[in-house]
């Protein structure tokens, strides 16, 4: 398995946990509400969805943008700029959280008036949102720190924070509802669990290899950069929020409040999309760094695996719910026979949407990572909102199920249009990753476990590749490969270390090392010399003027510029 594939899988685990936090939290709260308090409480939960969707959109927008630019700056080895962007993002996320809390404090009546919600469902939703007031700041911090810690490769803390939130939230909500505390218990549980999860993530700042540092800096220009970088991808959450508002108003208007539990079933089903978000979360730090170092071969390796996984995950959930639709109705406590029948019909119609959403999620994030935000924006707005709405209106006149068929088929039509657009603009050869084929052809990557024989073999292969052009450069590069990799091996002994060597030839030729051993800067010329090898490495570093080191908690990365004909 390649180095990037292994790193991707490690990040995927964290990504899925991070993504599952929100989905499971909302789904379980809705489930407990339905099972303990009845269908009116479930309807109340669907009235909360537009507010939380708007909150998630804004917090995701800022967090994703900051982590994207942070990873990109680290990819270019500009640590100072990375810290400035982190600080601006951090301060903004707190400010936004406070604004949402104020909106809850002063705008609830207007909110329910706008949705046209009243009766018992609105009472339940009001009770929940009154106790949800501390949550927006904490939601912001949790989203932000999860993405930034993941971008740094701190998978352990991200996973721990995700589990802390889930377990506490589920446990406390269950206990509170069982004790007869009403829907307020669910909101209080969310507040407490968020606080503890944030505390877990804050311990990352005490890690000796932490590069997320708050500096005395804030700039509106940074904020504009952050928002511009991620708007394309994060607009997906905006579309989700708009869709939630549209559907809530539409269902109340067209079918009456009685149908709100069916809508909640549909919202929960499409919310599984959040679970599939784990794949893009894992893709972001790797693709951003590979893209920043102009290493298309690395980007392709990650995306090949990610695309396969996205497709399989989407198919798995789609088939699961088509075959077993009552899993969801039982989970949400819907047991009125008419509502169950309606819900089953809706689930079977909507389930295939999960495949389209899974791929759309991945490619929306991908295009943002490679600076093609217009395609991200297309996916976010057209796939998730405009196309389904248009098809819904086109089909509604034919039948009542047109609503659900429209919601399902709209994203597919939008994806087909996107494929056609990319093929027309960039041609078949560049489809679908839009990578620089020329640079890719000039890139050779080797993944190896650091043993004598494997290192020597790679050193030989590198020399063979460069020999024809410049023998001196070839042998010096081979020496760099052997000495650097064996120094890393020595430093980590007896632990086995996995490494990746990328040789990018041609203009701006570079040799890039990655390893998952202990974090240390091999390019530091002041490092302690404890052996002949470390002495040779230290001397080599003195000569390598174009050297760079990127310290991330997940892996070491060292870059050396190769100059032909250098004396």
């Amino acid at each position, binding site marked *: 398995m390649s180095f990037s594939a292994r790193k991707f899988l490690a990040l995927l685990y964290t990504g899925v946990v991070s993504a599952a936090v929100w989905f499971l939290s909302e789904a379980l709260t809705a489930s407990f509400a339905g099972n303990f308090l009845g269908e009116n409480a479930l309807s109340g939960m669907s009235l909360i969805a537009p507010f939380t969707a708007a909150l998630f959109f804004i917090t995701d927008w800022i967090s994703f943008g900051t982590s994207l630019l942070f990873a990109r700056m680290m990819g270019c080895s500009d640590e100072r700029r990375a810290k400035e962007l982190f600080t601006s993002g951090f301060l903004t996320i707190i400010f936004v959280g406070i604004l949402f809390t104020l909106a809850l404090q002063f705008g609830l009546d207007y909110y329910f008036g706008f949705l046209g919600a009243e009766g018992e469902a609105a009472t339940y939703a009001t009770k929940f949102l009154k106790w949800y007031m501390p949550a927006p700041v904490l939601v912001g911090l949790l989203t932000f720190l999860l993405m930034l810690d993941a971008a740094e490769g701190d998978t352990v803390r991200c996973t721990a924070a995700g589990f802390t939130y889930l377990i506490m939230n589920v446990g406390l909500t269950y206990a509170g509802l069982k004790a007869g505390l009403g829907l307020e218990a669910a909101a209080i549980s969310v507040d407490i669990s968020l606080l503890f999860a944030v505390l877990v993530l804050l311990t990352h700042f005490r890690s000796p290899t932490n590069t997320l540092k708050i500096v005395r800096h804030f700039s509106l220009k940074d904020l504009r950069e952050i928002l511009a970088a991620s708007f394309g991808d994060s607009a997906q959450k905006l579309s989700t929020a708009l869709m939630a508002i549209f559907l809530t108003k539409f269902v109340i208007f067209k079918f009456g409040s009685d149908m709100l539990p069916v809508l909640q079933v549909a919202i929960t089903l499409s919310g599984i999309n959040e679970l599939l978000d784990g794949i893009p979360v894992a893709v972001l730090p790797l693709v951003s760094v590979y893209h920043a170092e102009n290493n298309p071969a690395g980007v392709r390796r990650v995306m090949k695996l990610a695309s396969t996984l996205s497709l399989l995950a989407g198919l798995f959930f789609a088939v699961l719910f088509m075959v077993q639709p009552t899993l969801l109705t039982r989970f949400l406590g819907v047991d009125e026979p008419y509502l169950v029948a309606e819900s089953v019909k809706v689930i079977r119609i909507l389930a295939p949407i999960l495949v389209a959403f899974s791929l759309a999620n991945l490619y929306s994030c991908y295009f943002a990572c490679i600076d093609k935000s217009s395609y991200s924006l297309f996916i976010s707005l057209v796939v998730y909102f405009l196309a389904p709405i248009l098809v819904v209106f086109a089909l509604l006149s034919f039948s009542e199920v047109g609503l659900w068929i429209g919601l399902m088929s709209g994203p597919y039509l939008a994806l087909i249009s996107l494929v056609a657009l990319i093929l027309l603009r960039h041609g078949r050869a560049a489809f679908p990753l839009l990578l620089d084929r020329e640079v890719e052809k000039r890139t050779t990557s080797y993944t190896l476990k650091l043993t004598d024989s494997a290192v020597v073999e790679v050193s*030989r292969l590198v020399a063979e590749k460069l020999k024809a052009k410049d023998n001196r450069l070839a042998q010096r590069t081979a020496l760099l490969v052997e000495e650097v990799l064996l120094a890393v091996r020595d430093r980590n002994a007896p632990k086995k270390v996995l490494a990746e060597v990328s040789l990018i030839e041609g203009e701006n030729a570079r040799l890039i090392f990655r390893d998952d051993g202990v974090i240390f800067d091999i390019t530091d010329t002041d490092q302690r010399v404890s052996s002949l090898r470390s002495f040779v490495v230290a001397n080599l570093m003195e000569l390598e003027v174009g050297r760079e080191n990127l310290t991330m908690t997940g892996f070491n990365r060292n870059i050396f510029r190769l100059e032909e004909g250098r004396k």
Partner: protein
Amino acid sequence: MDINKEKNDSKLTIRLKGRLDTQTSPLLASELSLEGVTELVFDLSELEYVSSAGLRVFLTAHKTMMAQGEMIIMNAAPVVKEVFEITGFIDIFTLK
């Protein structure tokens, strides 16, 4: 790597061909028996590459020869000579 040894009384000439790296250096080390040798000559005209593992073998041999004679390194290609320069070994060894 090819190791070609030629002994003439107390003079030992070793011609190295190919790469002297972490894998091949132990082979050279095992081939070095310096008993009774007063002049050790390494002919590196066909040596393409040397790493720190190869330097270690030269250094060990040099240490032994300091006590019983001299060690000369001949015909090193610029690429190989560069490694001696980088490490400062060029001032320790006698290069011709």
